[in-house]
């Protein structure tokens, strides 16, 4: 169980988290559902160790062993699809590039650059790059933006097969039904409904 207790985080004078507490499952796929700007991304960033809260504690997460998919794709315009995957793989796992291209259904795009990919393809590449990191916990911020629902369902199934716990944010109700747990949130400041 990931235990979040009394987290407070302010950004630019705005209180995003105020003594926020919640227990999140540490297995399966858990979705965080809530309106835009309610603080879901901030919560993921705190769990990943990318944002430091003013106060509060998080137990059950090692930020150094998480794999984060950012809200933006953050691809490198000068690297090909193949290179994006290879860049996060250690030398002994470089042969896995093809496997991760298949994961993202990007076979045949290995030599393409991000500029020639559609929004959905770029998102799938960013997701495959994150999944290839094999984090102990996957923190995915809107992983299926621009991805059609049928494909998103397949990607969700592949993430489940990987076995690592996944915490994701999403607005797509069809996908939320397929998650193991859904936490409904509102804010700011973030609160559990």
């Amino acid at each position: 169980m990931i235990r979040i207790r009394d987290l407070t985080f302010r950004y630019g004078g705005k209180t995003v988290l105020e003594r926020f507490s919640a227990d999140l499952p540490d297995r399966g796929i858990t979705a965080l559902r809530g309106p835009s700007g309610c603080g879901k991304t901030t919560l993921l960033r705190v769990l990943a160790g990318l944002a430091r809260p003013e106060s509060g504690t998080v137990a059950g997460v090692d930020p150094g062993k998480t794999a984060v998919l950012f809200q933006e794709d953050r691809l490198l315009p000068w690297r090909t699809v193949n290179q994006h995957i290879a860049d996060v793989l250690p030398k002994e796992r470089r042969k896995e590039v093809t496997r991760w291209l298949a994961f993202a259904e990007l076979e045949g795009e290995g030599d393409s650059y991000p500029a020639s990919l559609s929004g959905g393809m770029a998102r799938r590449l960013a997701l495959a790059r994150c999944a290839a990191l094999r984090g102990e916990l996957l923190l995915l911020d809107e992983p299926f933006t621009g991805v059609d629902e049928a494909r998103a369902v397949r990607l969700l199934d592949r993430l489940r097969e990987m076995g690592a716990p996944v915490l994701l944010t999403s607005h797509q109700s069809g996908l939320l039904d397929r998650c193991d747990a859904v936490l409904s949130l509102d804010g700011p400041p973030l609160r559990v409904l």
Partner: protein
Amino acid sequence: MSPDAWKRAVKAVVPPVFWLGVWQLAALLVGRELLLPGPLAVARALCALAVTGDFWLSALMTLLRVFLGLAWGTAAGVLLAFLTHFSPWAAALLSPAVKVVRATPVVSFILLVYLWVVRAAIPAVIAGLMVLPVIWGSMTAGLAAVDPQLLEMARTYRFSRLKTLRLIYLPSLRGHFTSGTLTAFGLAWKSGVAAEVICPPAMAIGSRLQAARLALETPELFAWTLTIIALSLLLERLLRLLLERGERS
């Protein structure tokens, strides 16, 4: 020839012909070759120079000095930019010094460096000193503009420092490096030749320029000046091609 091709040809030919005409007219009006030789007299002087080995050796040695200055100035500028970007202490210590170098007139530098350095090395030292702040400024701006989201991604995905440098910093800095180097080349060329004029080394365009002035050989003075301009334009174009090819790859 299509009408468009005609238009292009006219546009290419008319401006130089016009300015050559203005030059010739001005030379006729002045009427003294010592003060203003006409284009034909300069062309004759240039042809006479071009058949001598001394001309080509002087041009080659000047090129060598300028490129040497460009090389060390660029290397030092890049190194200092990284140092001042990543270390607040280095920034506090070195940034004012680089700004002073940028603000100092080239002539002051030439005369000062003349006190400390052997004559043959002065043009390269001066060219490098002019290049350094330009490259530093360009690279500092480039480093500040590197996408922080990509850097955060690199940290989060546990890229090593070397990998972050190779995959994020260097590709992000290419445009700044290209524009900085092209600007710096123009400065290196002009300041290098100026240093050669003030502290003439054995084989140099600047030395020949100075010798022509002292001998009152005005057509030769013009011929050397034309050589400087032509070489500068040619080399800048070559450098641009080279840098842009590097950027594309």
